[in-house]
């Protein structure tokens, strides 16, 4: 086994183990950062495969996303610091079976199909062709992704803003005046 293969298997094991630990750990911040570790391992494998821009962009994006995820986990989980043991699962048996069936099905596909072997030419530039592809033949896909992200931003702000369908929830209310003896005006 060459060095590259050894490093690949080490990174793959890290990705899978970290992904497993996401659902087993008690501390929620650790869960988010275990997921980040899984993503970093996958990003490193992508770097080994020659995708220079994609590997680092994955690590970059996932760092930011997992940071935000950690904040939301602390907001919404009842046991964020992991000081008590907890397990919040439902339909555990079904989930395990579904996971194993998915893995077996996809793995069977990987092993049984006769995939062609056309490796990336050594020393090829990958970033410049990607840029030309994004802004040339695949401009429509790129722009659609951009508009989708804009729609997502607007949608997220609308969903999570405090004012509901009937206006801001505190419309019409006034803060208490500084002078405690002032008469209330109706």
């Amino acid at each position, binding site marked *: 086994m060459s060095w590259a293969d050894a490093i690949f298997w080490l990174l793959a094991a890290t990705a899978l183990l970290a992904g497993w630990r996401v659902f087993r750990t008690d*501390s929620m*911040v*650790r869960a988010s*950062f275990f997921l*980040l570790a899984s993503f970093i391992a996958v990003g490193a494998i992508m770097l080994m495969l020659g995708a*220079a*821009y994609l590997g*680092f*962009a994955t*690590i*970059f994006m996932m*760092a*930011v996303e*997992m*940071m*935000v995820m*950690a*904040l939301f986990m602390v907001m919404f989980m009842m046991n964020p*610091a*992991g*000081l008590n043991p907890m397990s919040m699962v439902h339909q555990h048996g079904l989930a395990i079976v579904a996971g194993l069936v998915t893995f077996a099905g996809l793995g069977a596909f990987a092993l049984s199909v006769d995939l062609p072997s056309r490796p990336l030419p050594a020393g090829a*530039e*990958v*970033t*410049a062709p990607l840029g030309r592809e994004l802004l040339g033949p695949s401009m429509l896909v790129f722009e659609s992704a951009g508009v989708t992200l804009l729609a997502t931003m607007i949608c997220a702000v609308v969903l999570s803003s405090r004012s509901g369908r009937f206006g801001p929830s505190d419309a019409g209310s006034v803060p208490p005046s500084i002078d405690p003896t002032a008469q209330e005006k109706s």
Partner: protein
Amino acid sequence: MSPLGALGVTLGVLVAGVVLVGLLDALARLVLGPVPLETPDRLTLEGLRGAVRRQSLTTEHPDLAAWRLAPAAYLGLAAAGLALVPVAADRAAVDVEAGIVVWGAVESLTVIAVFLHGWSSNSLLPLLGAYRFVAIGLSVMLVSMFVLIGAALPAESLRLTAIVESQRGLWNAVRQPLGLPLFLLLGLAITLRGPMDYADSADLAGGTSAEDSGAPRLAWQFARAAMLVAFATMAATVFLGGPLGPLLPGPVWLLLKAGFVAALLVALGRLLARPDASRMLTFIWVVLLPLSFLDLAIAGLETLR
């Protein structure tokens, strides 16, 4: 140069740079007076002695693995950032095709390192420092990425050696005037200094470092200074032309420019006031982000001509 040699040189430059940063801080204290309410054990000889003599205390139920990991991660990221920088016009310790994106990854992982440092001590003031810093750090990181893309446009490449090469005629700081000031603000943020020091500030009694003591405290301060070294060389490379310049050899020019940026950051850290966190957040999103778009537009128009 062999990989081990490159690693050795990088770490050597890092340690020398940290010593220089300590001297700059001492000079700032001499010229501008001591920092009000500053906790002791900053990066001085006294701090070193303190770190060796004092024990490192822990809090109740800390996340000890993350607490000890945070300064190591911070230092590792600083070393990674420094390794990207070209020391001669066509050579860098680590020359990747997408160098700017690697620096972006260094920035975002730094925010995570600071958050972990604040979260893991299971204490109130460090937690507040960590949360404030995440909000400000992620926002100012967006600003810096647009500014860096603007610097990459004339080079038509994300590779740092190409960006250095594209500045042979004119430095990026001159033809993209908004770039360097905005990038310096990011530098203040990731080195936790001055107006962007929402993580380790005196109004939180040391913030994420409030529960640090002994050797881990020194490690954190060392890592902060190391990140300043890495940032200064990166700013000198992307905006001031890096190793380019007449007469003197490349590495000397890079050191001079990086030293200038580091002195500038230390001065800005002492001279600018830190607004309230929510005001700074509004300022970043409403003023700085549009300015970074403007910088990108200027860079684009420049390149199209």
